[in-house]
């Protein structure tokens, strides 16, 4: 009896097909990313003053985080761009792989492959910068990761954040197929603002006269008051529950919703 939900063989065939169909686009994106990384490395090298003898890794982390997030968002938003045109839509849905394999395949390409390729490019760029700086300017590299990543915010937590960002754009990609990145980006902003305003409305109804200012609240966490007790903070158990939901339930929920949304699509 054939397994209609998941087969590793079919997933492999699906990934091979996807990579073969789009290898030029992938090569182009990777080349651009590598070129941009090496470009930044060269700019960094030429701007490095002779008296700067230390290159702190923590100084390089902000651009790394920004570009990683941007790349994840861009690629995740294009996860289902095959659905933009009727002919490609038909091709996508009629390919003999299960819905799960198709969605999982897109996830693997847009998150796992992208993460590996991005880090490879980032590593090559960093090594280029490091080699040039050490060879020609006598600089040394200081690996001060702990300025950004520490026991309360580990690299694993950072990856979780990126996974959350990916899940949001991945889910958004089931709604928008053309110009999906800006559309999803603004949709997320609108949803976040709407949530914040809803929270403001509720807090104003409940604590209207006690609020420090009409907007002084952090959704799911605290309300700032003009009373002696300055802030009402959620109890620890609720805070931990909220954090657990955000860390471990929200992301899978977005994946599951994406799966069902793709399964429900028809060709008009």
């Amino acid at each position, binding site marked *: 009896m*054939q397994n*209609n939900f998941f*087969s590793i063989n*079919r997933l492999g*065939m699906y990934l*091979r*097909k996807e990579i*073969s*169909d*789009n290898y*030029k686009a992938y090569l182009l994106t990777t080349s651009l990313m590598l070129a941009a990384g090496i470009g930044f490395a060269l700019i960094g090298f030429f701007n490095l003053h002779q008296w700067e003898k230390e290159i702190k890794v923590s100084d390089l982390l902000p651009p790394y985080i920004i570009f990683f997030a941007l790349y994840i968002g861009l690629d995740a938003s294009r996860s289902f761009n095959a659905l933009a*045109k*009727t*002919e*490609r839509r*038909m*091709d996508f*849905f*009629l*390919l*003999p*792989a*299960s*819905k799960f*394999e198709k969605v999982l395949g897109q996830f693997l390409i847009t998150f796992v492959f992208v993460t590996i390729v991005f880090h490879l490019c980032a590593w090559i760029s960093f090594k280029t910068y490091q080699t040039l700086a050490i060879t020609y300017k006598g600089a040394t590299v200081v690996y001060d990761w702990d300025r950004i990543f520490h026991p309360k915010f580990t690299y694993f937590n950072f990856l979780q954040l990126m996974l959350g960002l990916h899940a949001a754009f991945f889910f958004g990609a089931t709604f928008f197929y053309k110009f999906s990145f800006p559309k999803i980006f603004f949709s997320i902003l609108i949803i976040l603002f709407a949530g914040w305003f809803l929270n403001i409305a509720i807090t104003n109804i409940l604590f209207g006269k006690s609020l420090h200012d009409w907007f002084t609240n952090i959704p799911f966490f605290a309300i700032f008051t003009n009373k002696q007790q300055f802030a009402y903070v959620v109890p620890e158990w609720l805070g931990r529950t909220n954090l657990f939901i955000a860390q471990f339930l929200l992301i899978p929920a977005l994946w599951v919703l994406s799966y069902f949304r793709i*399964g429900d699509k*028809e*060709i*008009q």
Partner: protein
Amino acid sequence: MINIQSLTFSYKAGRPLFENLNLQLQPGHIYGLLGKNGAGKSTLLKQITGLLFPDAGKVEVFGEVASGRNPSFLQDIFLVPEELYLPKVKIKQYLATRACFYPNFDYKAFDAYLKEFEIPQNQYLPEMSYGQKKKFVISFALAANTRVLVMDEPTNGLDIPSKSIFRKLIAGTLTDDKCIIISTHQVRDLDNLIDSIVIIDNHRIIFREAVETVTDKLSFKVVPQLNPAETVLYADSNLRGHAIVTPNQHQEHSRIDMELLFNAVLSNRQSIQEIFN
């Protein structure tokens, strides 16, 4: 093999395209699906291939619900759509990454079909003309050896020699366990190919007969002048005289003219129904 029961479907609320449509298609046949523009031919094909979901009723293909789009269903059904999508790869690459999804794919037959259609094996797909793309997809569809083959306007874009090759190949691939459905406006392209005719009009199946039954009960001929004493179900004047459809009262043997039949069914539905019931 294909079982459509009480299918109700509408694109817009309150304007049903199909209402309680029933249709059963058997293996070992080539069905010609005919109908005017907007009659619902493509929609019906999409329902059969699981690209659209019924509002009510069911569409089953070899016992599987089509809208489930399970791999076991998809690997045994192939749709050649009117508008094609082909990735920017060479034929070899396309074959290497897609044929593996179809367990009964016949690589030798695929090469033979490409040769018949005179398509070079090392061709880059985006560089092909529309007609060549169509021939390539038809070759792939036939080689996929699926039990159900659905084709929407397959002869659009094919040149005259390719149309006869198409007919030859289709006829050659039909086996007892396969069902081929061809939807087209160009009915003359299907002459001598299909063995059953399904006509959709006003979102209903108004005619469904085997070609043999049609030629048993109707007569197709060209006469120099119309005889007022003869019952003519449909007449079409041309340079040679009048092409007519009449009840086959004298058990004459005639070749079916699909276009005449289609027009006769649409313009004289009640009389035709009385003859066939």
